[in-house]
């Protein structure tokens, strides 16, 4: 496998026959390549079985985004509150 220069987003499929059922496993890969290095991020996306596409949810990532998003909001509000009092003190 040779990666071309630049950023690539590819969807990959792998078909397997298990317990008499044909299951297609879908994953998505982000490949970044430059003269200074290579980065590959690959994650599972879905399972296709019997015409049904079952998404693979990344619960940990969702919870992290919610928690860190809320943290950032609290930090921004806290900093804004401090800034306002400082402005009021000056005036």
């Amino acid at each position, binding site marked *: 496998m040779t*990666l071309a220069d630049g950023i690539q987003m590819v969807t990959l499929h792998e078909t397997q026959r298990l317990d008499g059922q044909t299951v297609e496993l879908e994953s998505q890969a982000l490949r970044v390549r430059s003269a*200074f290095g290579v980065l590959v991020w690959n994650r599972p996306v879905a399972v296709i079985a019997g015409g049904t596409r079952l998404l693979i949810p990344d619960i940990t990532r969702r919870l*992290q985004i919610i928690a860190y998003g809320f943290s950032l909001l609290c930090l921004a509000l806290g900093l804004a509150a401090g800034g306002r*009092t400082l402005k009021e003190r000056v005036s």
Partner: protein
Amino acid sequence: MTEVERPTMDAMYARAVDTSHAILDKLDQLFAAARPEAVFAAPVSAEGKTVIGTSEVLAWVALGGGGGGAMSSPEPNVQTSGEAEGRRAAGGEGIGSGVGAGGSVHTRPVAVVVIDASGVRVQPVVDVTKFMLAVATTVGSVFFLIARMQRATKSLEGK
């Protein structure tokens, strides 16, 4: 008397980039992470059920290098072979270079695909450690917000 062509900085840079690409082409073989097999584990069957583990894979390699040299010729690109040999023997010129690289491969379980007689279903996997770290950060941020708001309130009351 024959003349010896010295490499220019551009030529040396082009050679360094070619070497970098050659190394990266070799590293591509390491990057099996880009294949679906890296994300979906081999199926395991037991008690009429087949289970496939799925995980997220993040792999990266970065490299860099540099080099340089010193030559005491008055002409930058051309000199006679006799002079060059003499200077080399006397240690009047030198060139050096170095390359460094680093990288990591990180995997995290995402979900488990269960296949049995009733069909196919996906059971998510929650990484409790990562979640608790995020919760701890959130709690810290909330305390920060409360402290700032109390200070702001006191400041307004004192006016």
